[in-house]
């Protein structure tokens, strides 16, 4: 049986949206898939050595459950108050630890161990004046055409 291929495009740089690319990428690799993740725009944040800067915000996210069902009555404006983002981020991290959910760093390491390949979009790295030395090791800097070299043959392609 020929090895299946999964191509993922990771575009989001928040604590919550950092999970899907690494969870699905590492799991697919464990199932025998060849996996490549193309990180572009805010998704590049997921490649930084230290991921402590990633946040989750209730602002503009009406689907986000909050402790005690607060989201049902809390005015949207309150979610924009200073400190809300830091508070929700800290609560989310505590909840994840309590539920045995892996940290993003751990899932990223497991992905790399499983030979998931990470590609950083060269154009957005330059656009944001990002320093590739801030990224973890083993990243390839490349463009869209390079991504299609793999994605063109992929069995599954996901945009996140």
């Amino acid at each position, binding site marked *: 049986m020929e090895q299946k291929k999964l191509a993922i495009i990771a575009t989001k740089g928040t604590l919550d949206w950092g999970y899907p690319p690494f969870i699905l990428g590492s*799991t697919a690799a*464990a199932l025998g898939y060849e996996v490549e993740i193309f990180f572009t725009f805010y998704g590049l944040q997921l490649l930084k050595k230290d991921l402590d800067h990633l946040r989750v915000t209730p602002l503009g996210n009406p689907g986000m459950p909050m402790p005690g069902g607060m989201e049902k009555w809390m005015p949207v404006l309150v979610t924009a108050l200073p400190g809300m983002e830091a508070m929700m981020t800290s609560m989310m991290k505590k909840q994840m630890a309590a*539920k045995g959910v*892996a940290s993003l760093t751990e899932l990223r390491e497991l992905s790399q161990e499983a030979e998931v390949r990470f590609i950083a979009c060269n154009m957005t790295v330059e656009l944001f004046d990002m320093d590739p030395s801030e990224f973890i090791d083993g990243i390839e800097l490349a463009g869209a055409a390079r991504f299609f070299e793999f994605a063109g043959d992929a069995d599954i392609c996901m945009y996140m």
Partner: protein
Amino acid sequence: MADFDDELDASGLNCPLPILRAKKALAALDSGKVLHIIATDPGSVKDFEAFSKQTGNELMESREEGGKFHFLIKKA
């Protein structure tokens, strides 16, 4: 429970960690050896069935005992 060659306790770990750890543990075993996995994530029951189907490593046993899930997987 049948005999096994190695054991992995994935208690308290949530998706996808039990599968990722199991994959790693299986990689260290020779073909035909059996891995016993203990998990508490209820989602792991279907996940290990799917893992077995897709990787060809046989799921010899899957059962619940005392609130924990036990799996026996034979390395292909």
